[in-house]
């Protein structure tokens, strides 16, 4: 068996807020294997988005060990993390987060350009064709519907052909039919490219379509549901205190 794509050991995350220190993750162990699709569920404020951020190196864990694709992210600085994401990860957000001053094509080309890919625009065009937006290349985000914006965001995340796709409530801002289309695209992409997908969602139906479900409660991982044996998800000793 190849190395796991994600390995979290005793991960803690505490953030400073105006009201004081907030413990968001309180000792999480989690392993995600290559090619898996994992749905992360849990109530609002449980820490599931933070868990996703820690996996993506978007947030630095305040304790424990975070490994992605065999690389220890704990010791990488901000810039090294950015480059790691550029080369290995795609992220899809609930609020799309397209760059408003760039057209759909430019948004999708952006990560490829950052990686110095000479064919950035050709690849971006193909990617947008793939999500059905071949006719909307020169539209700015403000000229696109919510569903279209999320498809551009998905194309942007997929364009560099990442090994890991992280999605934070990708259908949260979309109506049912549009959301369904997006989910199909995500799963389709993962299947075609053999990418690992970790998806945060409120929707139990959507989570159930993943190979494995992980429930986050109060900064800890509840007993895993879904495909057994592929992962152990247990709170770190003493973390719940």
């Amino acid at each position, binding site marked *: 068996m190849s190395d796991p794509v994600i390995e979290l050991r005793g991960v803690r995350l505490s*953030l*400073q*807020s*105006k009201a004081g220190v*907030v413990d968001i993750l309180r000792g999480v162990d989690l392993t995600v294997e290559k090619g898996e699709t994992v749905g992360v569920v849990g109530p609002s404020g449980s820490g599931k*988005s*933070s868990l996703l*951020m820690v996996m*993506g190196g*978007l*947030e630095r864990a305040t304790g424990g060990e975070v490994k992605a694709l065999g690389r220890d992210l704990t010791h990488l600085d*901000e*810039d090294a993390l*950015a*480059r790691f*994401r*550029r*080369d290995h990860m795609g*992220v899809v*957000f609930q*609020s799309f*987060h*397209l*760059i*408003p*001053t*760039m057209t759909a094509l*430019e948004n999708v080309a*952006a*990560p490829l*350009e*950052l*990686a*110095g890919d000479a064919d950035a625009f050709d690849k971006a065009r193909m990617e947008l064709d793939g999500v059905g937006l071949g006719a909307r290349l020169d539209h700015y985000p403000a000229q696109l519907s919510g569903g279209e914006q999320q498809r551009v965001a998905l194309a*942007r995340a997929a364009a560099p052909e990442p090994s890991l796709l992280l999605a*934070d409530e990708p259908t949260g801002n979309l109506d049912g039919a549009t959301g369904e289309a997006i989910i199909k695209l995500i799963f389709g992409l993962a299947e075609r490219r053999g990418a690992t997908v970790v998806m945060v969602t409120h929707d139990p139906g959507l989570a159930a379509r993943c190979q494995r479900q992980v429930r986050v409660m109060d900064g800890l991982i509840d007993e895993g549901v879904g495909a057994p044996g592929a992962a152990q998800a247990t709170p770190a000793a003493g973390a719940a205190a």
Partner: protein
Amino acid sequence: MRLSTAFAFARRELRGGLRSFRVFLACLALGVAGVAAVGSVVAAIEGGLSAKGRELLAADAAVELTYRFARPDERAELERLGQVSEAIDARGMARIDGDAAVVQLKAVDDLYPFYGEVVLDPPMPLTQALATDAEGRPGAVAEVALITRLGLEIGDPVSLGEQTFILRAALLSEPDKVVAGLGAFGPRFMIARGAAELTGLVQPGTLFETEYKIKLADGVALDTAKAQLLEQFGDAGWRWRDHRQGAPGVERVLSQLGAFLILVGLAALAVGGVGVGASVRAYLDGKTETIATLKTLGADGAMVTAVYLIQIGVLAVAGVALGVVLGAALPLIFADTLAARLPVPSAFGLYPEPLIEAAVYGLLAAFLFALWPLARAQQIRAAGLFRDLVAPEQRAPGLGFLVAMAALTGAITLAAVSFTGVATLSLGFIGGVAVALFALSAAAFGVGRLARSLARGRLGRGRLPIRLALSGVAGPDGSGGGETRGAVLALGLGLTVLAAIGLVDVNLRRLVADQLPERAPAYFVIDIQNADLPRFLDRVDGLDGVERVETAPMLRGLITRINGQTAEEWTEAGNIAEGYEWVLDGDRGVTYSDRPAEGTEVLEGAWWPEDYTGEPLVSFGEEQGKGIGLEIGDQITVNVLGRDVTARVANFRRVEFETGGINFLMVMDPNVLRGAPHVHIATLYGEEPQPGDYLRAVAAGFPSVTAIRVAEVIQRAEGVLLDVAAAARAGAVATLITGVVVLIGAAAAGQRRRIYDAAILKTLGATRWEVLSAMTLRSALLGLAAAVVALGAGAAAAWAVTWYAFEARFVFDWGTALLIVFGGVAATLATGALFAVGPLSARPARVLRSRE
């Protein structure tokens, strides 16, 4: 990081247009335009002076001597260079029917002027106007000011000294007026060289100057001629000028005034920089999501910095270009008006140097002020996309940014020092602006905190408009951020400059106008012949109102050697402290006395006994003596009327030139100078019954004596001060206008928030009147805070200038203070009014729905 990618991203960002950068562009353009315009005007004047170098001198070159004519050997050397024209410059009193006026006499020969033109009314050749008529009466021409003052008509006889002249024409212009006019005590009265001796004003010991104007013969090289002459006669008090620098005095004054105005322009640029910083911050605040997204997609900090630095660079170039065009165009548009008002020749045109100078300042300032917000933007983390409930991290900018900011500050300072050429002033000014910015920044924080505690205290309880206004001033985090900071910094810096200039101006004018006359004499009387002195004292003693008369022998001397070294060697050996070069530069007053004058304070050494007959001794002004490196016992050689006198420094005494009384740098023991031909000067203390009474009385009995009314000299000095102050105030107003633009920018940036606040207030039941009251009060408080802080900073700067530069006591002026406070409040109220309509007309439902 790939630069081409950064450029591509920057271009995409800028594609949306420059709407959000209007304040950035306006601030930068205004600041640059000010500096460019001042520089262009100065360059135009320098251009005018240099293009008209020969006319300004009326010759190719000129040599000036004090109180003597050129000796035959000197004259022969001069004539080897080409044609030589001799002119005499002296002061005298023109008299007619019991009335008299001080004039600046100029006696010229037939060769004058070699270049340029003397314009007379009625038009006639100068030689004809000055010629002696059949009855033996020489002719004269006079400036209109004198003709009006004495009520003269063409053809009238006018007496000067012991000779009567016939006024033949009004002198409308003389080519070398700019050069001669600087030290003029009265209107010009021009006569023929041959008639000068007839007046009795030009004789050994009287105060006159001779000028030898030279028109070089073909093939004579200026530099060789100058070097040879100065080597041969430099010790004899020769002062050389040539057409390449026709008016060195004017140029020096001009370049100093220009440097000062450019520095005031830099203050405007600093205010503009605050605006640049604020608009970059506002822009980047709106880009938080984009930056976080870029970081999620894999952009590192350097890439983010590069993307926004490129945008700032493009905008800075645009703003600077706009400013340069404005700054170049304004003087051209007003060229005719300016040329007519300037007392010196000018040649308006496009001068690249001042424009490049302004552009350099502009670019450096834009980057300097943009770097801080950029450093903060670089720290935005990708995680920001997920959450905003957690307080953002406030870290100091990285080392790279700090080094870059320090380097830019250094570069601006270096540029200012090298462009203006006045190191101390530049360093002081830039240091002052930096300190003011820090102080204002701290004050903004303090004002914010104060407003917050007041809002929470009893003052705000139950008084919604007051509480709203105070919390508006306190800012979102209670530290005077946002608009408060912008207003206090930008408006405050503008008002600081205005307050400082206003207070210095008031103090200087007080120094000249109020303090001086209390102790100053009513008249200075010069050129009293030795033989006339007893009769003169008799005459003035009997005049109404004269309280006291002081007289002293008056000689002038040039210090040529110190302890055996020539003045040049002494200077080169580094003995002269900065600011005391003038002591050795030219003729200085010398007198003799057997005892110290009343009130003299001997600080070091001892005065000689009354019957002293030994080695020549000299008493030296303490400050000036030490300034040129003298010590008690040193030997100085002074050239008095062509004769070298070597004396030993016996003591140092306090010399206060400011009192307006008789004061000499050097007092020698009587034995040394008593025998030399000399005149006396006198000061008359008291109040004359009618202005000019003493002048007429002296003129009637002593034709060769010149009496100068001190009040007129003071008026003239005040006039110069007023002109300089007006120019400086214009610069300060430009600073203030830039400040108001920044204020408008800050208000515009806060507009959405104010509309939202107003919508909420209205939802809660506030009337429009209450909303308006809160906004007005908030504006007024902001202006008041900025003005009070500015007043403190301005007063500190003015105190430093008055105390250190002018060594005078500083007096706070409440008139200026009130004006500053009023100006500050008016500026913020006016800006507030500009943006009042939006919040007042806000429809709560619409505003709040659009926020969801």
